[in-house]
Every structure is written in structure tokens, then in C-alpha cells.
């Protein structure tokens, strides 16, 4: 299990940043998804021991984050959302410094820093001071700094924010590459559904300091009940009327023999079969429609499931 939360709470004055956060997340790449202010960064900082929770327990890779924060940080890499840089150092020096802070020897740190900068695609500009970098280059350095000590899990906080489309693509490619290779597991905190859809296999959805969903993306997308595409034998069939009588919403899909059916809450495919039986219609094809991540996200947030 990558992360496990149990009744985690955190307040900042009158603001309740986290309310009884409970859940577990596992997988190679996990999206921590939610709008700004949902509590994602607070939760990450609690995992790292940078913030102390007001209550509850956090376990990172099986280690209690409050009991042994140093052991947790040895296994974690973190790329913060903010600037988080040391002006005056070059990209190479920044990454090597991060490695030395994790206990690597100077020489090993430099070698490893070069390796990580090759990985994130920062070329000769690695020798320039970080304050001269573009946002994209800076994000690469932060990812390299998070990876340099070979952690088992990397927390990336809004890594694509402020990037142009090309840089964003390249960074997401890198995350996919890490996910599919020998790299550490990844927790990607973002408010961008597309980033999660492209890179993650699991997701934890947060809103207003609470967990709305934690599980695989596939399970999330099939949670929306009762949306089907049908192809019927007779174009002018009475099936649509029979379905409407049973509370379903029916729409044409451009051809008279194709129907889009949304079932009422609590109903399943049996309702379609019973309507077909009652109307004497033959169903040639029945396909459950997969919800888009956006639909699934909106539903999860609305349901608070």
C-alpha cells in the first residue's frame, strides 16, 4: 500500500483543510485529483512530515509518518508546487545538493545528478543558474531533485502547472515512462483531469478536505450506472416508449435503430430486457457506455461517495 489515511484532520485557524480523510491508495501511478483548495498539498505535506496533522494517522509505504518521518522521507521524493529553489545554484548543483541532503557522497551525488538530468531531458543548460530557467526547465529540475536519491515513491505537486503544451506533453511522457519502467511509484497531485487520465492507473478524488473517491480509474469510470447504447432490429420500435414508461431517458443517436439510454437510479440492464420483452422488440446490440473521467469525477464529487 502506497498511502493509507485514517481520520486525518488538519485545520489552519478557522479553515478546515482536511476533514476525516480516510482511504488507501495503491498502484504505480496515482492521481490525487481535486480543485484548488481541496487539501491535496496539505495531505502531501502531512505524508512528508512537513505538517503535523491535528488528528488521525498517515502511513506511507507502511511507515507511520508521525512516528518516523526521517524513514518516510528516505523513501519519498517530493517536487513541491512553489519555486522551491536555491538561487545561485545551477540545475546540476541543485540536483546534486538534493542528493547530498539525502545522504549521498559528493561524487555519487554528482554522477546521479547527471543521470537524472539526462532522464528529465535537461541538456547543457544544467550548468546555468536556476533563476535563469524557464518554467518547464525548472519543473524538470524539481522532478530530477525528487528522483535523485532513488525513492520508492515520488510525490509530484502540480508538476504541469504553468507549462506550455509541448513541455507538458514531455513531462507527462516522463511520468508514463517512470510508471511503466523501474522507476518509483508516483502520486500526481493535480486539478487537471487530462493529466490523470493520461498517466495514472488509480485516483483519489478530494474536495473541500474530504475524500470523495479512492480506487482505480477503471472502477471510477464504470461507477456511473445505467448508460447504454442499443441497436434494435426495427427502426420504429416501441422500445423507446416502453423504456420511458419505466423511468429511463432515451435519446436518438443519429440513426433510427440506435438509442442512447440512461437508466433511473438503482436500475440495471434488466430494466432494458423487461422493456424489450414488453414491447416485443429485438435488441441486436447492447453496450454499456463508459463514462469519461470528467463525468465520473463530477459524479463522484456530487455523490460524495
Amino acid at each position, binding site marked *: 500500500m502506497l498511502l493509507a489515511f485514517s481520520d486525518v484532520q488538519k485545520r489552519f485557524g478557522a479553515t478546515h483543510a482536511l476533514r476525516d480523510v480516510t482511504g488507501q491508495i495503491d498502484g504505480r501511478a496515482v492521481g490525487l485529483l481535486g480543485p484548488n483548495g481541496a487539501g491535496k498539498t496539505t495531505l502531501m505535506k502531512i505524508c512528508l512530515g512537513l505538517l503535523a496533522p491535528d488528528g488521525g494517522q498517515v502511513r506511507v509505504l507502511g511507515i507511520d509518518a508521525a512516528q518516523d518521518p526521517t524513514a518516510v522521507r528516505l523513501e519519498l521524493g517530493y517536487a513541491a508546487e512553489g519555486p522551491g529553489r536555491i538561487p545561485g545554484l545551477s540545475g546540476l548543483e541543485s540536483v546534486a545538493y538534493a542528493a547530498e541532503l539525502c*545522504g549521498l557522497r559528493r561524487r555519487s551525488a554528482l554522477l546521479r545528478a547527471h543521470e537524472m538530468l539526462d532522464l528529465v531531458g535537461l541538456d547543457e543548460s544544467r550548468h546555468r543558474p536556476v533563476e535563469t530557467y524557464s518554467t518547464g526547465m525548472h519543473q524538470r529540475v524539481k522532478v530530477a531533485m525528487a528522483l535523485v536519491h532513488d525513492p520508492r515513491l515520488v510525490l509530484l505537486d502540480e508538476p504541469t502547472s504553468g507549462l506550455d503544451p509541448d513541455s507538458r506533453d514531455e513531462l507527462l511522457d516522463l511520468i508514463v*515512462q517512470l510508471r511503466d519502467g*523501474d522507476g518509483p511509484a508516483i502520486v500526481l497531485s493535480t486539478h487537471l483531469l487530462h493529466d490523470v487520465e493520461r498517466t495514472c492507473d488509480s485516483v483519489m478524488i478530494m474536495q473541500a478536505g474530504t475524500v470523495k473517491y479512492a480506487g482505480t480509474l477503471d472502477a471510477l469510470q464504470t461507477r456511473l450506472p445505467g448508460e447504454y447504447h442499443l441497436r434494435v432490429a426495427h427502426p420504429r420500435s416501441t422500445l423507446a416508449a416502453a423504456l420511458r414508461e419505466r423511468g429511463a431517458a432515451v435519446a436518438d443517436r443519429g440513426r433510427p435503430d440506435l438509442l442512447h439510454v440512461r437508466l433511473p437510479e438503482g436500475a440495471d440492464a434488466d430494466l432494458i430486457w423487461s422493456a424489450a420483452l414488453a414491447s416485443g422488440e429485438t435488441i441486436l446490440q447492447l453496450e454499456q457506455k463508459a463514462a469519461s473521467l470528467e463525468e465520473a469525477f463530477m459524479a463522484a464529487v456530487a455523490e460524495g461517495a
Partner: protein
Amino acid sequence: MSSHDQVFDIGYRPMPERGRRQPPAVAIARTMLLLAWRQRATKIVLLICLAVLGGHGVWLVGQLLFERFGSGVGPSGLPVTELVGSTREVLANFLRVQFFTTAIAIAVIAGGAVAEDRAAGAFDLYFARPLTRADYVIGKLGGAAIVPIVTILLPVVLLWLTALGIAPAALRSELWWLGVPSLAGGVLSVAVLATTIIGASAIGQKARTVSVAYIAAVIVLSGIVEGMTGAGYAFAGYLSPERSLHTVVDWLLAPQQSMLGSQVSGRYTPINHSALASLTALLAWAGAGFGLFWWRLRSEVVG
């Protein structure tokens, strides 16, 4: 395939072995000094410190050589006590003057040590890694302490060893006892300067503001204290670290009053209460500097 893809194709390689963790404080101190070294102002203030050392070295060596090869020591030359006295004066003066120049140097070099980290949001960068507050404290204080160690402590020992090396044989046993007090004066300077600049840096937001404020505080404090003591407020003397150090160093280096020197040499002399009060004041400055630093860390970093 673009050149970018080729770079990516190297892939992620787990580290073959992790090995024993190195103390991160060394890297923190080294990086802090490296960043300072890249500023031109650092080189200038270090050159000034070097000039002060050079001036005192010439003074000391010239004096001893003149007495050794000129008028001679003993029956036909200056009395031994006078030569010891002049060597003591060089060492005490060096500690006093170099304290001032090092205050400027350390303000330039270490003024941004903590302030810049706070301004750049680098605390998360540090403490998201397996680093304790103690590692950070040791690293930053160690980096700051290197400056007075290099400009005060090592030079005062060098001056003393030089005096020992070139002094006439009759003088050596007397000069020998100046070593411990000189060292103690140097250590006090290191402690006060390193802790106060880091404390100032911990409450500041910009390196330049901290540096200017620190230098101004040292100069203004000395001036105010001078005025107040002149006006009859004797206690004010203890408020100036430079003046307190002066008092303590004079006391430590005085052959008849040196507590350390006399105890080591077996000649006990009564305790100088003013010097003890100055010593207490210096330790209070060091404690205040360290306290500010620790308070800042405790308030911004979870332990």
C-alpha cells in the same frame, strides 16, 4: 525519433546500492559558502580581513626581529616583560580589529544563510528530505563559523606561533602562555559572530537587508555604548559585543590577570568581575542569536 526522445530512452536506473548516509550538514555548510564565494563583495571583505592580518603580522614580526637582532634582549636590551607586553598588545589589537572586519565579512557571507532559504521557499526543499532541524542548524552555524575561524581563530594562532618561532629563546616560555588566552578570545569571537548573524538572518527576509542591518547594528551599538559609558552609564559597555570582547581579551591576555594563562601556569590571580560580566554578555549575545534561529525553525518546521 527526436533528440529529446533519445535522451529519454536512457530510462530510469535504480541506484545499485545506497551505502552509508553522509551527514548532510557538511553539504549545507559547503553550499552556503559556495554561494557566498560567488559574490564579489565576499572577496573584497576577505581581502580586507587578510590586510588586517598582514598588518598585524608585520607589526609583530618586525617588533620581535628588531628586538632580537637590533638592541637584543636581556641585560643590554629591552626587558623581557616589555617584549611580552608588546606581543600581547599585537594579539589583543588583532582580535579587536579583526572582530570588526569579520563582522562585516560574516554579514556579507552569511547574511542570507537563512533569510534566502525562507524567501525562496527552500525550507520545503530541505525538510522534505531526511534532514532534521539539528542537521540544518549544524550546517548553517558551521558554515557561518567557518568565516571567523578563517579570519580570526586560525590567524591569531598563526600570529602566536610566529611569535613563538622568532622570539628570542629567553622569551619563549613567557610567550607560550599567551596561546591559550588568544585561542579563547578567538573561540569567543567565532561563537558570538556565527550565532548572531544566523539569528539575524533567521528573522530577516532579504540577504542584503540583513547584512546592512547587522553591520549598522555593530557600528551603531559600539557608538552608542561609547557615548553612554562616557556619560557615566558604565553598564552600557556590556551591550557592545566588540567592547565586551575587548574587555575579555585584555583580561585573558594580561600576564598578571590572565585567568586561563595564570591557572595553566600555576599563578592564580583574583577574578576580574568586569571581565566576567563581559563574558556573560558575550554568551548572552550568542544565546540570543541561537535562540532566534531555533525559534524560527521551530515555528516554521515540524520537528
